[in-house]
């Protein structure tokens, strides 16, 4: 979601009142917000981003300080909190400093139209379910090569997304007063399409089939570095012991199969929380059983690959029950994939 800055605005804040004038049209108005902001920061030193999070339990009080890689960089709060004195931070000086910056920048992005401004509310111009992430450009200099996009997956894991209604799919950990986000592991950090998936596609409500394909893309992406590692190991083995070539050729054939690499990804290249893994495995088994497909009792990688084959090759045969199962499976799949992403490591 993008709002462009209206360059022709003059905004001043004093004694609790914003005075806004648009030079282009001559429109001016006074706006007295409910909160008494602290205007000690210069708004142009900060960046804001619009996020969504419509999860159960998210409220006007969902106001958090934001830490990226252990460095405090700013805040995330619902836009509602800017027009209310009822939340826990209505008198918190630190919140009010950042809230001022956000409100200033929101006004900067407004399109003016002819209207009565006596009852002006910022929520008349922005969606009420919006959450704002604001960070200090100075603070993020402490993080090497900072780019907020690198934290897209982590924000998603906390419930926030750039489109849709937030991460309403996976189980979310309970947040205390701080949100701590982190980048993906170094070895996969530069694969920009992972961020694109979480930024633009995965948060959207889709049919079960599309959703499965979108999530499976992450697996497709990650089995690529798995393949490279495995090949590297074979080459190293061959250099160290150039005998048993038949066995090595068979191994080479094996690693070229997608199924093998998916199993390796789940078993050797990541660490999935046991409970999540078991739940996901149960969904895979149920779906496969419902469609008379073979499955392994405990091999989640194997079963995921079997589900993938079922969805890709036999989509037409899925009955109503299977389609419902696929929706449940997708939620669990996303849970598991997030664990895979954050624990991915080369061996």
């Amino acid at each position, binding site marked *: 979601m993008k709002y462009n800055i209206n360059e022709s605005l003059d905004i001043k804040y004093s004694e609790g009142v914003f005075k806004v004038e648009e030079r282009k*049209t*001559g*429109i*001016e*108005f*006074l706006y007295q917000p409910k909160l008494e902001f602290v205007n000690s920061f210069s708004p142009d030193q900060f960046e804001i981003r619009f996020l969504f999070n419509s999860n159960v*339990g*998210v*409220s*006007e*009080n969902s106001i958090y300080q934001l830490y990226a890689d252990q460095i405090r960089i700013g805040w995330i709060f*619902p836009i*509602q909190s800017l027009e*209310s*004195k*009822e*939340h*826990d931070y209505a008198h918190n000086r630190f919140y009010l400093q950042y809230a001022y910056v956000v409100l200033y920048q929101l006004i900067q992005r407004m399109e003016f139209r*002819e*209207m*009565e*401004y*006596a*009852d002006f*509310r910022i929520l*008349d111009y922005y969606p*009420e*379910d919006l959450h704002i992430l604001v960070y200090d450009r100075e603070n993020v200099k402490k993080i090497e090569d900072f780019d907020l996009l690198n934290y897209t997956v982590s924000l998603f894991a906390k419930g926030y997304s750039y489109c849709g209604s937030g991460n309403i799919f996976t189980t979310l950990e309970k947040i205390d007063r701080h949100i701590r986000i982190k980048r993906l592991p170094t070895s996969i950090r530069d694969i920009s399409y992972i961020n694109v998936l979480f930024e633009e596609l995965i948060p959207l409500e889709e049919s079960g089939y599309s959703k499965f394909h979108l999530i499976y893309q992450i697996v497709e992406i990650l089995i690529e570095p798995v393949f490279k590692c495995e090949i590297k190991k074979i080459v190293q083995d061959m250099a160290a012991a150039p005998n048993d070539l038949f066995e090595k050729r068979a191994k080479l054939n094996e690693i070229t199969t997608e199924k093998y690499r998916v199993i390796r990804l789940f078993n050797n290249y990541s660490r999935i929380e046991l409970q999540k893994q078991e739940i996901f495995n149960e969904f895979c088994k149920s779906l496969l059983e419902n469609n008379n497909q073979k499955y392994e009792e405990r091999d989640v990688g194997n079963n995921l690959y079997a589900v993938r084959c079922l969805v890709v090759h036999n989509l037409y045969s899925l009955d109503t029950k299977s389609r419902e199962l696929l929706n449940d499976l997708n939620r669990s799949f996303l849970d598991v994939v997030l664990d895979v992403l954050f624990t991915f490591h080369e061996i």
Partner: protein
Amino acid sequence: MRKMSEIYDNRIRSKNFYFETTFGEYLQYAKDLIQNNDLQRKRVKTSQTVYSLLKTDLLHGCVIPPLVLAILGEDDELKNIERGEELQTYIKENREKVLILDGLQRTHTLIAAEAEALEQKRMKEFYAYKLRLEVYIHINKFGVLYRMLTLNTGQTPMSPRHQLEMLYSDMLNQEIEGVTLVPEVKGTAHADKKEFIFKNTIDGFNSYMNRSELPMERQELLENIKMMEKMSSEDISGDIFKKFLEGYIKVFDVLCKKSKPGQLEKERLQEYEIQGNPFAKKVSNAFSTSQAMTGFGAAVGIMKDKELIDGFGMLERVVDDIEKNNSDENDDWFLIFLKNMDRIRNEAKKIGNAQRMYFQYFYRELFNRESDSYADLCQAADKSYKMYDSQVNGS
């Protein structure tokens, strides 16, 4: 100023005069009418709007729809006025009683056009242009409000909430039933000393008129229509705002009486697992908020529409029953109430609106003779949360 006709408005029980006057005559007192009331809305300031085109047209003597004025209150002097000149003199001498019901923006534009005519040295010609005026006399505030809303359907209507505030501004610092209405300046309202913030009472009255506890801050034509429908069923003869306030004060008094004086102790809050800052530590503080008054206004309005009560008059009986049914100086009901407020603060997407809704259900439970919670503070505090929760979460 020439009188063209005189008609009696049977709905708002007021006499309506129709005059033909000139720009010059009107501008002799128009500026004072605008300055009369500092609550009156700011002009829509823009150089590219229809008002700027209107200004140019006015300089060339265009005809605009009649401006509508109202002279508030009863004044014997007005009864004898027959001629236009007499009324003009009366208006000039009693500017503080005159309100612009319709045509505020046009008046602003006329004043701006006058300044330009002065620059262009065309004053004589400009002042002679004709203008039509309607004047209501012997009109009470409710009639003014009703007419304001029925007339005010222009491009930039003032919100009903704002109009109420403007109209009743003379009640600021006045005492009603021992309660003083004070302006919203930090630290001025002491609920214990029987002071209410004027704006909160207006919020409450607005909620009564709209049958909704939500703050009516956006001007939507729909609001006006809804509000007019409700107003049309009201008895025009009395001052409903005053009745609203008197009713609320009775309830407020009995609630304060049925709680311990002073602030709640920390231990009591802990006992009820109330985390962080409670909504209020005293009944008087909780029930002098905008949330409390809007909830009350909406509750009474809704119950009246459902014919569960016949108006503010019945509150006397309810208050007597609350008095009898609940022991004095007992904090339990208030702690249950605060505990629910605490849950709302932690869970609501819009805390303020959720609190208003909870208040609304609280009063409805308390005032409804058919409810098990009738006049029972503990039950009302408890059951109203269940009502709120089922409304919001469907549980």
